């Protein structure tokens, strides 16, 4: 059997000596969509930042496609094919949409076919291609952040709360686009507070509470779990 695309084991990390996430282990297989659900401050961003080496983990290791990426420089991890879309997006505000996209492919030459695909999935970006990224609306910026990540032809796309700051309709639209990407075979890990959308996209999920993984299961199991329903789905 083949090894998982991403393998995280015993990962702990945090700020100024205090661990925000503790002993996190999980695996993601090729072609899967997995969600990590948790409320504000549960440690979702910290987990991603530790995987991508923006934060230095205190314990544990991460393996991507058989390569040990623990403490590997962020830009090198990106070049291996692990693309990360942070909640803060980190776009280049005074570069045009098209320049932002082309940088996504760095250090390779942008692939016209991928570019065409991005403009097909996010039609609104095509209309704005010569505008500065800083002038886009929140929804368009989110599209651009995902589009920029796709330009590197990633094998794994990690998204941190892609619906942050989006109106409900745009959030749904955003997840429709992610669904298309999943159907085309892209492996996706998404951290989310908008649990219904995330469970619809993913086949299984982990619940992150207070820096640790609690419940885990298929999306249907999680959606049917009374605790999840009470805490995240607003079912009384």
């Amino acid at each position, binding site marked *: 059997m083949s090894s998982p695309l991403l393998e995280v084991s015993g990962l702990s990390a945090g700020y100024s000596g205090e661990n925000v996430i503790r002993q996190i282990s999980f695996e993601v297989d090729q072609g899967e969509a997995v969600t990590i659900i948790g409320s504000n401050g549960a440690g979702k961003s910290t987990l991603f930042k530790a995987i991508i080496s923006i934060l230095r983990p205190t314990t544990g290791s991460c393996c991507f496609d058989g390569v040990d990426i623990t403490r590997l420089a962020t830009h090198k991890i990106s070049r291996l094919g692990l693309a990360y879309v942070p909640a803060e997006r*980190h776009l*280049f505000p*005074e570069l045009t949409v098209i320049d932002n996209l082309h940088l996504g492919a760095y*250090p390779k030459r942008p692939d016209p076919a991928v570019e065409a695909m991005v403009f097909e999935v996010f039609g609104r970006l095509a209309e704005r291609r010569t505008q500065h990224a800083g002038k886009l609306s929140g929804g368009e910026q989110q599209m651009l952040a995902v589009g920029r990540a796709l330009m590197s032809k990633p094998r794994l796309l990690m998204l941190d709360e892609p619906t942050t700051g989006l109106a409900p309709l745009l959030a749904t639209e955003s997840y429709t686009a992610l669904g298309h990407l999943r159907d085309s075979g892209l492996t996706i890990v998404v951290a989310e507070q908008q649990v219904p959308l995330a469970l619809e996209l993913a086949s299984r999920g982990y619940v992150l509470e207070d820096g640790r993984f609690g419940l885990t299961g298929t999306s249907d199991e999680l959606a049917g779990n009374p605790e999840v329903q009470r805490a995240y789905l607003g079912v009384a």
Partner: protein
Amino acid sequence: MIAAILDGIVLGLQYGLLGVGLTLIYGLAGVLNLAHGQIAVLGAVVVSVQMGNGMAAVPAILIGLAASSAALLVVDLTIMRAVYRQSGETRILLGLLLMLGVAFIIDGILVWKYPIERLGLRIGGDPIAILGVKMSRGSLLASGITIAAGLVLVVFFMFTKFGLAVRSVIQDEQGARLVGVNPARVRTFVFGLSGVLAGLVAVTRSMTGPIGADNTISLTILALIVAVVGGLRSVPGAFVAGVLLGIVDRLSSFYIGTYITTIILLVCAALTIVIRPTGILGGSSG
């Protein structure tokens, strides 16, 4: 009047390149290079020494530019490492102090070893009339070289992959890492580039008047003023600011007096900070 403005443009193009060199390093590394003038003169002195040994001008100039560039590369790869580990105010302050140290060291070496070395590249031939004003060939060649260097920079930043990567680091270093850009490599490159630009300014200025150890501080101050008026993070802004300040410089020398010119330029910088903190071209950075 027209003569003063044309002179101002010649001078201003060089000011622009001076400001661009400072702006690049500040925008990218958050380090205010207080040794920019020293780095520039260092290159000019190397050219002068080589030519004194009988070398032809062009290879001597290339070696001089390489010397300026190498000096900043060494700074980036050694003492700046300590600066890059810091953030916020500590980083700015430490960078400032270390660059001031570099300035003192270069000044010391120049005054000690080459106190009377002056680079004066005399460009022969009769003046050429432009808009009825006779311009020396030295001024025209200096401007031609500076404009060519500016165009090369525009092409590099607008149309090359690596140029785009440099701009991405200036705008969002974290974002740059996420797309696979190595900020450390970009920084090293830009220090080297800034050194070449500084050397080029000293070499072109020497086509209109001699450059030596006593020009270091005034060049650093000019670079600082131009970069501030340009907005400190805007490369095109620095270039435009340089040209405008060159014209202000010449007009004020012509109508008021040379002694007060630097003060007027400083006032321009102070007014920019108060009225337009993002610089002359507004918020356009990178």
